């Protein structure tokens, strides 16, 4: 038994490929827990960032600067009454959020956090991710159907039509990135997620900058299509509160609604990690070819520790600015404790053995975090698309440009 557990530690592959059930389960639990924490942090960040964009403060009361707000939201949603509409189909009503949740969480088994830091490395990695994330359309259709009410039905039809329209443009952009992986010495491309990042490592360039501007245009098409795919602003007509009274999840209350939100945020993180893997170099540090060498490697390896120390500094500045009143004492202590924890993590990340292992994971998560902030920025900035404008953009603008980029990438790849 102990041999089974320790025999994996010497190997250099992902636990799925090694066939080691114990370590695969450990990795699955770690990724699952990490995504759940990330969804809660995303919930907090969205409310605070939207508020600051609109020159107000957002939640400030629940914890220091509203840091415990997601926990309060979760408690409220758990304790709400569970209402099922009268003539609704109970089984389908129950299973629709579960389908969206399972589809959004299953894609994480191929997400590459490092050369061996993935749950497994399927040969068809990117095809698997695109396929399983398209299963959430089924959940949306069934949620609208099972609610037995007009607004959810129209909302779910609009939402599913939008999702399947933008999947086509996403697929074309992804194929043009896969074409670029085949430009290595052996001449064979790969669909596996770890293989795509390793192809970028071999060619020493992020696919964003390859065949400029073709890689950039493909990335922009994917970035727009992924926002439409996850029903986020400015494409959130089917689920916005001022339109169709919240669309396909109108009749869902309490815990079921929170499952929808969990699935939506998890899908956002999943498609962002597709974009990071395909175009932004995955776990590679920035500037791999221009700023290469031992000293630059050392400088970039200090960035994780420095970023956590920077966050701790911001927390301590917040502590210094807290009002000196008795009612705020517990918030001040809480924020100081939070800052101390962040500072300790930052100091721990300076130790050389931790530094080497944490590099890949840190750069991957940092790039995905940039995408998450971009999602919130879009929501604060852009007005909503009308539904016919949305479909027009998807079919008449994105798809021809994506096909054109694909053909040009193929031609340029053969010539050079």
């Amino acid at each position, binding site marked *: 038994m102990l041999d089974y557990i320790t025999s994996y530690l010497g190997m250099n592959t992902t636990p799925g*490929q*090694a*066939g080691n*059930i114990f370590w695969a389960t450990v990795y699955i639990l770690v990724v699952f827990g990490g995504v759940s924490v990330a969804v809660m942090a995303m919930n907090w960040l969205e409310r605070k960032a939207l508020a600051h964009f609109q020159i107000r403060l957002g939640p400030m009361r629940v914890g220091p600067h509203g840091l415990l707000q997601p926990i309060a939201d979760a408690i409220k949603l758990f304790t709400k009454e569970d209402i099922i509409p009268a003539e609704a*189909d109970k*089984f*389908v009503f129950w*299973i629709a959020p579960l389908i969206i949740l399972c589809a959004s969480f299953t894609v994480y088994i191929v997400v590459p956090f490092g050369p061996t830091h993935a749950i497994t490395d*399927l*040969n*068809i990695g990117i*095809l*698997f991710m*695109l*396929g*399983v994330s*398209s*299963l959430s*359309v*089924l959940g949306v*259709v*069934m949620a609208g*159907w099972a609610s037995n009410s007009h607004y959810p*039905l129209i909302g779910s*039809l609009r939402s*599913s039509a939008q999702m*399947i329209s933008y999947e086509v443009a996403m697929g074309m952009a992804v194929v043009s990135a896969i074409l670029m992986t085949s430009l290595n010495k052996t001449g*064979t*491309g*790969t*669909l596996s997620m770890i293989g795509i990042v390793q192809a970028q490592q071999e060619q020493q360039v992020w696919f964003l900058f390859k065949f400029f501007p073709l890689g950039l245009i493909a990335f922009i098409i994917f970035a727009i299509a992924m926002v439409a795919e996850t029903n986020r602003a400015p494409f959130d007509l089917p689920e916005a509160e001022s339109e169709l009274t919240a669309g396909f999840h109108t009749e869902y209350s309490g815990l079921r609604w929170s499952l929808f939100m969990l699935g939506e945020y998890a899908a956002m993180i999943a498609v962002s990690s597709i974009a990071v893997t395909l175009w932004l170099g995955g776990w590679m540090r920035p500037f791999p070819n221009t700023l290469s060498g031992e000293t630059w490697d050392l400088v970039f390896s200090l960035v994780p520790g420095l970023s956590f120390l920077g966050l701790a500094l911001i927390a301590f500045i917040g502590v210094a600015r807290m009002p000196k009143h008795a009612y705020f004492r517990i918030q001040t202590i809480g924020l100081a404790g939070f800052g101390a924890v962040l500072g300790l993590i930052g100091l721990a990340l300076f130790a050389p053995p931790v530094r080497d292992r944490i590099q890949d994971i840190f750069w991957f998560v940092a790039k995905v975090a940039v995408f998450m902030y971009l999602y919130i920025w879009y929501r604060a900035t852009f007005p909503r698309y009308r539904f016919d404008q949305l479909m027009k953009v998807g079919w008449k603008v994105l798809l021809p440009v994506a096909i054109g980029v694909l053909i040009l990438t193929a031609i340029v790849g053969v010539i050079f």
Partner: protein
Amino acid sequence: MTPVATPFFFYLLSGLTLVSGVLVITRKNAVHSALALIFGLLAQAGLYLMLYAPFVAGVQIILYAGGIMVLFLFVIMLVNLERSQKEAQFNKQWLVGLLAAGALGGLFVAVYMRGQGLFPEHAPLPLEGSNTQQVGVLLYGQYMFAFEIASLLLLVAIIGAVVMAKKRI
């Protein structure tokens, strides 16, 4: 890639497939049948993965479960089936149909019992890391003509479906 607990996964996945097949043909509500078919298709994708065919499994998930079943669900929603849930579900020839299917099943059993020695029992384990590349080489090399004909067939199907479902031709 080392296989792990093959009999357990085989019986689980094939059991799920067969149970969902039974549910498809026996449910009154067409939406429940469609849901059961989706689960059956996903279990079958798992069976393809066990047979070292990851590309076919990916195509099954993307096309069948994520495309064709969405089409079925849209049509079930358009065609309002409330009334048909209260009518008789099985037609008048159900006994003859069952007997014919039973005869077909008996034929299958006879063929499999006679032909057991015709193919090797334990298959050689193929290389997994390059399945997509090999399928791609075959598809664009030897089967290029069939590939182009399949794309033409899809074009004809799109035109046919649009013409069929229009209100006035």
